[in-house]
């Protein structure tokens, strides 16, 4: 059984669904998950130069028979509207996105706060299923069901990690 942390539960749930490939753009909140994944030889994980690139890699891997999850932070998600609307959505490729949410609940950078407001409207406008993880006791259920639905419906999905869950440090 996995350690009872958000990153321990997500790590175990990804494995339970055969998600093996993890292209990511680094983020400090995601660091414990990234470190776990790098330490586990089950996964192939590497940093990409842009989030768009990582989405392309995940889409190609799915078509080649390997499941992937793309890790990024909010500002990186904001670069993705074009590729989401022209690759995974119309081609029906279940690319899984995991976004650590900056820009709210103690943000110190106005740019992050503004860009964060674009995320959910973009997801809603191109009909991408998304859920915000706020509680530890709901992480396994939500991640599990989101992956199942993405695969079954052949559509991308996005999981947002709220500071309520990750306890991101605030600026003092």
């Amino acid at each position, binding site marked *: 059984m996995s350690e009872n942390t958000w990153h321990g539960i997500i790590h175990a749930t990804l494995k339970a669904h055969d998600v093996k490939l993890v292209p990511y753009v680094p983020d400090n909140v995601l660091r414990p998950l990234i470190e776990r994944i790098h330490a586990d030889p089950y996964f192939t994980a*590497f940093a990409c130069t*842009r989030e768009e690139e990582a989405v392309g890699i995940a889409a*190609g891997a799915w078509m*080649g*028979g390997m499941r992937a999850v793309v890790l990024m932070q909010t500002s990186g998600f904001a670069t993705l509207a*074009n590729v989401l609307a022209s*690759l995974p959505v119309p*081609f029906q490729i279940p690319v899984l996105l995991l976004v650590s949410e900056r820009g709210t609940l103690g943000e110190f950078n106005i740019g992050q706060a503004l860009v964060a407001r674009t995320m959910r409207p973009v997801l809603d406008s191109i009909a991408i299923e998304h859920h915000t993880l706020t509680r530890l006791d709901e992480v396994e259920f939500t991640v599990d069901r989101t992956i199942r639905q993405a695969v079954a419906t052949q559509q991308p999905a996005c999981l947002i990690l709220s500071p309520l869950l990750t306890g991101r440090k605030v600026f003092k």
Partner: protein
Amino acid sequence: MNNQPATRNTAKPVARFDITQRLVAKLHHDEAVIGGIGHTNFDLWAAGRRPQNFYMLGSMGLAIPIALGVAIAQPQRRVIALEGDGSLLMMLGCLTTIGARQPENLIIVVMDNGTYEITGGQPTASSQGADLAAIARGAGIANSAWAADETHFETLVDQALATPGPHLIAARLTQAKPAGQTERDPAQIRDRFMRGLGTKG
């Protein structure tokens, strides 16, 4: 020419549809081909439908990342990305990811006509000094070369299909209209491609 590697300046401009046909004719092991947007994938389509071809519609610049994903998922299959110069310039960083990972089964073919041809022929940086094969070498893709002419292009393709990659082959193109136009049915394109890769029954 035999003693000096070709550069963009010395490479003979070749016709995109002609070299696309020459490339496809060499694919005998169900190699996957990812066609980047625009005339690059129009000519791939016109060169003959193969279930192992994926035709992008939008997501400019992602032919190489998509090919890398396929190459990671299927290490026994060779995967070829066909990408235009304008598209590659939009996603140059992906060459450094390839350089860092060194996928042995990945081949990149850059179709460099020096222009954004489909939008009216505006010049790209590659027609003004940017050497995409040199950039790829600098990114860590040591086997990056300009095709001096059609015959040399075929030689480079033969080498890339026979030796561990990653490989990058850059071809300088003449200005030419594409020989066809890809059908725009993304779900069907993806479904056929997955059947061609054996990932959907």
